[in-house]
């Protein structure tokens, strides 16, 4: 199930997306919490988030969260049913498919706004 096959890639991607989401989340909490120090300090940081690379990277955050969420469901299904382990490979391709479709949808909604600068 594991070495060098889909299961191993699913595991690596789960860890990688999890750690990336955690890193983003910690920065996100700090920067949102800045509003307790007033509008000036809050906007000083948030003005920087209009930078195009940051806005494009947010699409990756959304993609990573969907992969992590769906693969998490796959893990739960494997943990609590025997069938889940038997079909873990097929489930993983389903996870990838959902993540790709969601990412395209998010990009479709967000890219025009980034291009228009709103």
């Amino acid at each position, binding site marked *: 199930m594991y070495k060098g096959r889909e299961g191993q890639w699913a595991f690596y991607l789960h860890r990688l997306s*999890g750690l990336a989401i*955690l890193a983003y*989340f910690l920065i996100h*909490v700090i920067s949102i919490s800045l509003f307790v120090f007033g*509008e000036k300090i809050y906007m000083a940081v948030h003005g920087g988030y209009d930078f195009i690379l940051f806005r494009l990277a*947010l699409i990756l955050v959304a993609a990573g969260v969907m992969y992590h*969420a769906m693969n998490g469901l796959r893990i739960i299904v494997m943990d609590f049913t025997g069938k889940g382990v038997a079909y873990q490979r097929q489930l993983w391709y389903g996870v990838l498919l959902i993540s790709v479709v969601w990412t395209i949808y998010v990009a479709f909604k967000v890219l025009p706004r980034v291009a228009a600068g709103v």
Partner: protein
Amino acid sequence: MTIRARTMQDAKQQSHTNAELNWWIFMRISGLILIFLVLGHIYMTFVQVSESDATFDAVINKLSNPAWKFYDWLLLALTMLHGVNGARYSIDDYVRSRPNRAWVRNSFFTVVAMIFALGTVGLFSFNPN
């Protein structure tokens, strides 16, 4: 020690302590709840509206509603516990020497506890007027 199990039965046998088994169960339950909370949050604040709509006034406005305050705090607390426990699994797997592991873990937990306190104080000390 980190549990590497594929089924609940394996997890029970592998867990050396009750705490470790409880964390294993916690990851699954909080994960299920977080799917709705986090994807809902991303949809409402990023897909539906623009990221640059998160202005100072918008945050103040949203947080004057106690229901959003509760939603955001639940999001904060569950993501914090789920994420930090996940990172702990990674630290245990990749930081091999014992003294290093203790320090990496402890400094990491300290930083996270400070950010959690900042977020919680931010949410609840806040007064719209």
